């Protein structure tokens, strides 16, 4: 069953004096993604792959085109349905250092999604958080530290644990390991692959490194100038 269907998605940025210069960041992109599969998105920097990722999630409002999630058109969603969408579609960013609120302890970072969506009560929250941090092979002791005390690899794991709390069906991974070293990158990517097998999560995996994308993805789309120019 196709989990996600994107039809002719466009995202234009207009700038200049009378909005004349138009930057066609995403210029008519269509693809489909099965449940539990990974679509790789590779391209030079500035080809629009990050913008595409955010527009699919509706973090950026699309200029045109439709996105179907589980055969439901998501552009029209408001209020309660939109909030529910937040538990099903999630994103991992490129810079782990900036992905967590520096003033919140790691415990609160992981517990926050649970609290926002009211997924579990006070008592259950603690056990759930311990379970989640264990799931990404991090020591419980880190729960009371602040993000500035953790390394890039550890922070990215906290981000993953945080998202897993919502049991998402689809995750956009926007160059999650480009800032990390080889060994740490391997740890994170194997973790993501294991999660896909265990929980059937589908990924839109974005990177400028073709070798990494090949290893991670079932199908790869090559992007250039806001368009997908090749599928393999």
């Amino acid at each position, binding site marked *: 069953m196709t989990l996600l269907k994107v039809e002719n998605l466009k995202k234009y940025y207009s700038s200049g004096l009378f909005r004349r210069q138009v930057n066609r960041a995403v210029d008519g992109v269509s693809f489909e993604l099965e449940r539990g599969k990974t679509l790789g998105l590779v391209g030079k920097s500035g080809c629009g792959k990050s913008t595409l990722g955010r527009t699919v999630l509706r973090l950026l409002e699309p200029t045109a085109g439709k996105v179907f999630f589980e055969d439901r058109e998501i552009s029209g969603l408001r209020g309660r349905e939109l909030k529910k969408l937040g538990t099903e579609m999630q994103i991992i960013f490129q810079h782990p250092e900036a992905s967590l609120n520096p003033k919140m302890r790691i415990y609160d970072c992981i517990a926050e999604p649970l609290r926002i969506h009211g997924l579990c009560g006070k008592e259950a929250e603690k056990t759930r958080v311990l379970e989640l941090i264990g799931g990404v092979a991090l020591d419980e002791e880190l729960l009371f530290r602040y993000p500035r005390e953790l390394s890039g690899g550890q922070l990215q794991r906290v981000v993953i644990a945080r998202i897993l709390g919502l049991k998402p069906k689809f995750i956009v991974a926007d160059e999650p390991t480009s800032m990390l070293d080889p060994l*740490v990158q391997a740890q994170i990517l194997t973790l993501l692959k294991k999660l896909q097998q265990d929980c059937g999560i589908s990924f839109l995996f974005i990177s400028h490194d073709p*070798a990494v994308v090949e290893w991670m993805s079932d199908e790869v789309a090559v992007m250039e100038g806001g368009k997908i120019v090749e599928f393999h």
Partner: protein
Amino acid sequence: MSLLSVEALNVSFRTGRGLVKANEGIFLEIKEGEVLALIGETGCGKTTFGKALLRLLSKNVMIKGRILFRGRDLLALSRNEMRQLRGKEIGIVLQNPSLALNPVLSIGDQLAEVYRSHEGCGKKEAEKKAGEMLGLVGIDPSRKAEYPHQFSGGMLQRVMVALGLALRPALLIADEPTRGLDLQTKQQIADLISGLVKQEASALLLITHDLEVAEQIADRAAVMYAGEIVETGKAREIFSNPGHPYTRALLEALPENGLRAVPGQGPSFVNPPSGCRFHPRCAFGTESCQKIRPRLLELEGERQVRCLLFESTGKPEEIPDDAAKS
């Protein structure tokens, strides 16, 4: 006699959290015109090593050991002698180019300044040389009046290379010249540096975590882990059949080699693990590895490995089968 020979170099910093031993007991040699890649992950002390060679570290540093450059110990030089040597005999390309250039001076001025300061030539001549150097690194000389913020990451990196090689130094230290660049720009910068270094017959110390770049342009390679050199040797051999378990892990972690991950992360520098520092994460670790701190063993083919497993075999490829646990 080698161009640069580092002997028992110890670099440590006095910090609030105690003594951070960034480099311990480092022995390294670079011959004239040779390209040596110093490979290691972020925070293993390789940048500290690069900056230590030119004594560019902060005031709370303690450096012991000897750094012989053409026979002269750099640690013994006076401040002024050292100042004259920097840029002239040893050039350096620092890590993030967007921060390493003065934002309010045009790149032409910053380049010409090097010539005026070292060779004392006039304003006009310095600018001529600056223009030439920019052309050499593939930047249109007419852009020399522009400012750093008007250049892309890749172009800024070229400016840094121009600054490093301006006075044709005998040794160029390049610290992570390809970090943060996308694939195509990374390739161009790697070719640019290795081409220019060959053309000027100067040696290159390439400090990087990027194994592909190292494999492509290095003659010899040295691998650093937690402030120690764990393996050195000819680059081609190290990449085709690595000896030290850490080097193996690094290569196996590449996507082309199956992206196999080794658990855990780099140890603390304040109180590093006893014995071999990699033992907590090593697939072949034994009890003795936890107790004895292995020394750098000389193996066949100019290979050196800091690992007890090779005491018996003497050959880098063979790992004694009883030791292979997992």
